[in-house]
């Protein structure tokens, strides 16, 4: 897509620090990293979110995450990384071209998980039923 910043990176209209590329995906450094080595993995085709992407393309992206994650651990000597994908703007997706983040992690980096709560009596059952009946 012409106005998409990730498509511009793909077409080399914008420079990037490329980490990995194959026929289906490309991975490059996030220029505003949460930690050094923070990498973005995108499909080469412009697809906005997980709903648009095919199972096969999603699998290709995930395979690339595994490959890059291992290289990241060895190359940057980190003992873990967080993988996330923000699907749609309400989930903090800022660029509408589906992408995984891989963020190298270190002891004491201060990245907190979001606060969790408990279900009230009967609520989990109700929720599970609502989701289950929409599974195709």
């Amino acid at each position, binding site marked *: 897509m012409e106005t998409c910043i990730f498509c511009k990176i793909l077409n080399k209209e914008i420079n990037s620090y490329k980490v990995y590329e194959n026929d289906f995906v490309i991975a490059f450094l996030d220029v505003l990293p949460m930690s050094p080595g923070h990498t973005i993995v995108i499909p080469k085709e412009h697809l906005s979110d997980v709903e648009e992407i095919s199972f096969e393309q999603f699998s290709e992206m995930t395979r690339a995450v595994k490959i890059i994650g291992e290289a990241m651990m060895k190359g940057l000597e980190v003992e873990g990384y967080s993988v996330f994908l923000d699907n*749609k703007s309400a989930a*903090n997706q800022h660029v509408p071209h589906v992408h995984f983040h891989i963020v190298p992690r270190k002891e004491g980096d201060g990245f907190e998980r979001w606060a969790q709560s408990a279900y009230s009596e009967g609520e989990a059952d109700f929720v599970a039923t609502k989701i*289950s009946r929409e599974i195709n």
Partner: protein
Amino acid sequence: MNDCIFCKIVSGDLPSYKLYEDDDVLAFLDIAPVHPGHILVIPKKHFKNFEEVPEDTLCKLIKVVKKLGLALKNGMGYEAYNIGENNDPLAGQIVPHLHFHIIPRKENDGLQLWPQKEYAEGEAQEVIEKIKKFL
């Protein structure tokens, strides 16, 4: 693995709110949700992390994540969701059995991404060279 809480959920030794199951993958509600409907997707076989899981199992997992993400939005009326996997204890992985979180989201629910900052001059180049050595 005997003392793994997720293996016990797979075997039925511990109860769960099960959402989806096939030969290789199980999905159930996280009982301490960030928002109601927070889902965990795990391989039935015990693999600790991305390093241990074979590619074909990983692909089966991610397909279920996609399927369940849509059901979560449609069933609960959410607009969006985050997929997350904390790989290894230093990354905040609490249960050492590979799992994807699907966290449902609503506009302006106040959940923030981790802070970002810029690279120093030359730092980004150094970083990719270190990673690419192992690709």
